[in-house]
């Protein structure tokens, strides 16, 4: 039997980027709140200090900062006809764990989505006709527009001290930036990071080919920065231990380096770490959340009553808690009814590995940061005419190699033996002169009727709750998109003077063992119609109005960018709606 704790105004489930942002905004509004986080508290100097932050084996290979599959995992299958099996070692994506969430180990690639991405269904239908889209594609408009989110993107970029070159300030196209981006109110708070030799060379080759390359917007600091909350970050040292790692010297924007120091000073904020929320409680009407139930590290169960519940866990865990709590109708792909679990998506990435003459090219790949790189956006979203190509969607592409870490960065030309003296010789010859961008083609994944999550009928977690079951495969649209983008990407490396260019297309079936990105999206999506979305345009549950669900679970489909900028902008958008609308008149904000 759960013991009951004193009531709070707000309970926040998960203390990553969105939980931290929301906690700060609502604490600032004077509410008494508690955040409950499944994983441990994490601090820079005690959890990933420079003395061992750069331990590739510990963090990259053994996944120290991530959720352990022994805590919980997912089951996976490609098709509805198959039986799903549990994932026992993370592969395609890396579920975060602990205070700071994915914001601790992200690359800090801080993108905005395109204006057309938010009205995708309308835009594509108007431009190409409704028959251009695959029949089973379930893309939707978001219910919020780029212009509405712009001030909130801005707020996050200034929180993070994002380093970048604006491409469009209030409609004026800026040289050196991304000319395709939506208009922004002002420049980035910091100039772009310096680009290493290879990245700069890619930019030059892209420009020579007629593209408009620009430095990737980066939450790695190009110079010291103090954000509007008074929190300071130091300049990036380009150490190349960023993605999968915590930053040891306060140079990467994370909740720890931007929000939490200010948040923990608020007397009306409390946090519980190592405590896992197992259920959102609702009253007998089913239309009002009364708080949450959680289990602490000792295994004791507690009830935390609250007037407002904010769900801000990782995508798939948001969906899981909704399903386990019976909030919203579960999605049924056969009947095409229900909303919780639908429009689940990931990303469509691929890579091109290029080999250059070692006598002429020394790239020093270990000089890097998580969001270093030169990119082009000509083939993202609907920035080009898809008419002749027979697919929709796209992505940015760039030389965004973030490291030369010795265990994983061993590119060798195709045909090299996989081990032994010949392999070692090839690694040595090519280490300084090969380019392996990682996820150089960062393509969108649109939503489909048969790609979704639900509760697994067979497998249970340590609390005897059903695991989440992922049903996912690539569809032809994404495979075509990736082929087109990868070929375009390879041309740029050819133009740089590579002697050999190896294209690694993304192909079906979806491979759950091979890392792509951690950008799982959807499952509790926002929209304008309660029959096809779980949340309204303010990320408020249609069914339980005192529940808001933050994070990429709200994306109706994924765009060709890293999602964190949009995830955070939506958190600020929601916080603003709660502060300016909901608190004055608690209830459903949209009449649908």
């Amino acid at each position: 039997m759960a013991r009951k704790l004193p009531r709070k105004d707000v309970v926040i489930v998960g203390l990553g980027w969105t939980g931290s942002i929301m906690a700060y905004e609502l604490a600032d509004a004077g509410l008494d709140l508690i955040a409950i986080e499944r994983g441990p508290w994490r601090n820079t100097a005690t959890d990933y200090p420079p003395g061992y932050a750069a331990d590739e084996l510990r963090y990259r290979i053994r996944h120290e900062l991530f959720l352990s599959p022994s805590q919980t995992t997912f089951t996976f299958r490609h098709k509805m006809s198959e039986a799903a099996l549990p994932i026992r070692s993370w592969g395609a994506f890396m579920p975060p764990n602990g205070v700071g969430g994915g914001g601790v180990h992200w690359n800090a690639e801080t993108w905005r989505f395109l204006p057309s991405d938010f009205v995708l269904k309308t835009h594509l239908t108007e431009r190409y006709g409704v028959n251009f889209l695959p029949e089973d594609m379930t893309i939707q408009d978001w219910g919020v527009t780029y212009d509405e989110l712009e001030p909130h993107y801005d707020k996050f970029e200034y929180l993070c001290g994002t380093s970048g070159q604006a491409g469009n300030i209030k409609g004026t196209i800026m040289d050196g930036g991304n000319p395709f981006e939506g208009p922004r109110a002002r420049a980035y708070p910091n100039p772009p990071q310096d680009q290493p030799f290879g990245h700069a060379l890619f930019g030059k080759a892209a420009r020579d080919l007629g593209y408009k390359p620009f430095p990737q917007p980066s939450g790695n600091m190009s110079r010291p920065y103090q954000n509007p909350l008074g929190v300071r970050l130091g300049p990036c040292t380009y150490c190349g231990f960023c993605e999968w790692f915590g930053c040891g010297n306060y140079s990467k924007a994370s909740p720890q380096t931007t929000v939490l120091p200010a948040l923990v000073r608020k007397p009306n904020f409390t946090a519980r770490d190592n405590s896992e929320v197992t259920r959102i409680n609702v009253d007998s009407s089913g239309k009002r959340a009364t708080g949450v139930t959680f289990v602490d590290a000792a295994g004791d169960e507690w009830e935390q009553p609250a007037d407002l519940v904010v769900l801000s866990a990782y995508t798939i865990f948001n969906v899981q808690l909704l399903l386990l709590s019976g909030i919203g109708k579960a999605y049924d792909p056969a009947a095409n009814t229900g909303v919780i679990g639908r429009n689940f998506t990931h990303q469509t990435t691929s890579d091109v590995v290029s080999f250059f003459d070692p006598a002429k090219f020394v790239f020093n790949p270990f000089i890097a940061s998580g969001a270093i790189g030169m990119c082009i956006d000509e083939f993202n979203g609907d920035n080009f005419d898809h008419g002749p190509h027979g697919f929709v969607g796209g992505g940015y592409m760039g030389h965004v190699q973030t490291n030369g870490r010795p265990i994983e960065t061993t590119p060798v030309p195709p045909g090299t033996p996989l081990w032994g003296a010949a392999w070692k010789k090839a690694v040595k010859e090519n280490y300084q002169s090969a380019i392996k961008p990682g996820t150089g083609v960062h393509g969108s994944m649109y939503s489909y009727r048969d790609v979704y999550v639900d509760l697994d009928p067979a497998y249970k977690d340590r609390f005897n709750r059903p695991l989440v079951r992922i049903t996912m495969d690539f569809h032809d649209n994404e495979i075509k998109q990736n082929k087109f983008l990868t070929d375009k990407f390879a041309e740029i490396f050819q133009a740089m003077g590579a002697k050999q260019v190896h294209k690694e297309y993304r192909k079906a079936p979806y491979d759950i063992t091979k890392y792509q990105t951690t950008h799982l999206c959807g499952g509790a999506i926002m929209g304008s119609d309660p029959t096809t979305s779980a949340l309204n345009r303010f990320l408020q549950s249609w069914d339980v109005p005192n529940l808001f669900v933050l994070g990429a679970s709200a994306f109706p489909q994924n765009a060709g960018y890293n999602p964190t900028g949009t995830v955070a902008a939506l958190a600020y958008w929601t916080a603003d709606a709660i502060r300016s609308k909901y608190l004055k008149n608690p209830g459903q904000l949209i009449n649908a």
Partner: protein
Amino acid sequence: MQDFSSVERGRYLATAADCGSCHTIPGSDHPLSGGRPIETPFGVLVAPNITPDRETGIGAWSDDEFDAAVRKGVRRDGKRLYPAMPFPYFARMTQEDVKDIRAYLSTIEPVHNPVAVNQLPFPLNQRMAMTVWDTLYFTPGEFREQPDKSKQWNRGAYLVEGPGHCGACHTPKTALGGDMPDKRLQGYTLQGWAAPDITSGQGPLADWSADDLAQYLKTGHNRFAAAAGLMGEVVELSTSKVSDDDAKAMATYLKGQSGPKPAADSAAESHVMAAGGAIYQDLCSACHKSDGSGVPNLIPDLAHAATVSTGDPTTVLRVILQGAQSVATDQEPTGPAMPAFGWQLNDAQVAAVATYVRNHWGKAPPVSEDEAKKERAQLDARTN
């Protein structure tokens, strides 16, 4: 009858005097109810309960009895206080100010908390001995303004020499624990930290402007240094809460204090410097930068951080071995921390890198392996 402005002045002065630091157990929900052990060179004293509880606090005391304790070191029962209570400094306060502090203390929550104050060994537990001590080291008498100095300087002098009791930590002590009057504010080591020379002549603060000092007192950080350890606590509980004018006044007064040139230049051996420099570039340069200059208000500048270049290496060794959490304040909430390296570096390596950071940018004496070893042993024995 309570006068609100008197209570408010008293609250401010109690903060400036940092009463809470000793009289509150850190993290306790019962401020000023005593019980915090105070480490002295002679043993541990425990700070008494100064809430208005009549039985275990000071609720039954008269204002005169309170004044006698604070400014004369005489307890209500006539016995002498140990100078862990900095009454030799508080003696400089005006009677009015002490009365206001008393007025404020009368308004806080009374807490019933009996405290066994004296845990010193014989013969130090004999308070009679304090009479002799007072004769040697205690000069009664309120602060007198110096008419040839500015109003700001005089205000700073009052705060530094009176309620702020800066010399309690920063002035060298005699074997009996009394201030050495000719070495005021020139640095002392206590409770496992070296409180550096804070005079402004030629010591480690020579390059600090009054604004740098004021910013440090107010925020715990400036372009050179970050407050941690005991000074972090002082900033958190006291100096960050004084007014901007008072912080500037203290800084102005301190900048006017001349001090000696540090010990003669003492170059370290080249092989130690080579080893220390290699360790520095490997482990330290990511934050402090290759040239030691750090990042203003975030990472200390090793050429100008007083605790690095002060004569006594205790703090620099402690911070390398154990790490340090800098203070977070409203104006500088970041609170960056230095990680511990004691698990990673042996005594010779600790000594080498300490020698490097002291000798490469400043001219502080080298640190021996033996000193590093002793500091490590002392830290292992510490409970805080």
